[in-house]
């Protein structure tokens, strides 16, 4: 039986625990044993330790990586920032022995050692490579019935590509999420701003209006070019922008349409038969139409 360490981070367990529920559900349904990473912390977020120095950043990340190493498992995360921060810290330590040495000197005082033996996966690549599209297809209970999906992979799931153990063939033309949606019975056309940033993150914290305006530009292109039933994100922060951020634009009367949004883990969990109430518990934009379409043909 496959095993994987579930790295939660902050935004998923505290802001969008319905994504946590969905990741747990889909791993269970796909026969992957979830290993809890007890005592794990923030990845750490880019605005925290990484903005102080490299060794502090790597030490905070290594705390998390060693929890998985001690249990002999790889890590999976549904958050782009966690995927980026953990992998980049790992890259710094694996490339620069002097950084790793300083980190281990600190960790040794609490009886820990970073070895570099656990890989860090995101949900997209784990489904694509470790589960496989044919296997996924064979296990779904609800076909998506042609549900039209606009996919948003998310910056940190793609770049910096050198820090990642696996990636898209062309990070500026990502196809893995489109292929996953199509394997579930949906359609997921390309659109011209597919790799554009959603604006969530530091930009949203420091320049909220500009962040939302950037997001609206992207959303307008999605609406005009493919007019989807739903937006599917590979990153939890993107989900928060596509859902709550979009609702904010509507409230501010800056947007006169709405497109519901799901994390890829939520979409897969629903297709595998998850409790929809729990899997979408924190969504702001109603998903009724999406769920009806998924469940309609079965």
């Amino acid at each position: 039986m496959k095993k994987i360490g579930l790295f939660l981070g902050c935004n998923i367990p505290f802001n969008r625990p319905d994504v946590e529920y969905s990741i747990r559900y889909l791993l269970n349904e796909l026969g992957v044993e979830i290993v809890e990473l007890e005592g794990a912390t923030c990845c750490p977020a880019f605005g925290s330790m990484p903005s102080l120095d490299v060794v502090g950043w790597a030490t905070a990340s290594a705390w998390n990586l060693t929890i998985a190493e001690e249990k002999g498992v790889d890590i999976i995360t549904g958050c782009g920032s966690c995927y980026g921060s953990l992998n980049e810290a790992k890259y710094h330590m694996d490339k620069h022995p002097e950084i790793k040495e300083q980190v281990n000197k600190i960790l040794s005082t609490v009886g820990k050692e970073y070895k570099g033996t656990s890989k860090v996966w995101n949900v997209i690549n784990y489904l694509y490579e470790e589960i496989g599209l044919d296997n996924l297809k064979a296990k779904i209970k609800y076909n998506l019935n042609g549900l039209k999906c606009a996919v948003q992979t998310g910056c940190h799931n793609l770049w910096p590509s050198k820090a990642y153990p696996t990636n898209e063939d062309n990070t500026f033309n990502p196809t893995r999420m489109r292929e996953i949606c199509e394997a579930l019975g949906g359609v997921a056309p390309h659109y011209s701003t597919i790799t554009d940033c959603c604006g969530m993150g530091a930009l949203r914290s420091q320049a909220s209006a500009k962040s939302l305006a950037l997001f609206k530009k992207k959303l307008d292109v999605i609406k005009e070019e493919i007019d989807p039933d739903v937006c599917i994100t590979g990153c939890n922060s993107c989900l928060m922008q596509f859902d709550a951020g979009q609702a904010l634009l509507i409230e501010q009367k800056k947007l006169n349409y709405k497109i519901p949004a799901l994390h890829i883990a939520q979409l897969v969990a629903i297709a595998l038969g998850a409790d929809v109430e729990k899997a979408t518990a924190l969504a702001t934009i109603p998903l009724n139409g999406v769920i009806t379409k998924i469940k309609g043909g079965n």
Partner: protein
Amino acid sequence: MEEVTVNVIDLNQCDEDFIKQLIELGAEELKECIQCGKCASTCPMALAGLEFFIKRIIHAATLGLRDILIEDPSVWACQSCNRCVEICPMDVKPYEIIQAVRRAAVRVEACPASTYEGLRNLYRFGHAVFPKGFEERRKKAGLPEKPPTALSFDELRKKYQEVLKQTILEEIAPFPLD
């Protein structure tokens, strides 16, 4: 955000020591920049309309324009998306320069209040992002009130704090690490 004008550069403001500090803080390839502007073509900050975006930040860094870099908050709006790192033809790693500027800025306490808030939450709870009301949200998703992170394990959280105390946080945090 305030408009920043860097069109006229007073070369008397160039600070060689600041350039050295940035290089020590991670901007190792700073001097390789040829100002081609590829980073700006893909930077969300630039596309969102921030005046002082990646290419201009790197330019100011190569000249050691310390005051502009420390005082302007734009570096804190960087998404850490790494598009610039991916496409830079000189492998300058522009994002690492943004981080170096942030690192220089926190050393003189020139960062947004949210930075300290995140660091305080990271130290106290093990989570930089720690929004109120999560217990209720977790219940809605059918999950236990607390996740199985450091939040649920006092001993492990204390150990984590012991680890953080041995990092740069000990010098920089404007709050007691106790």
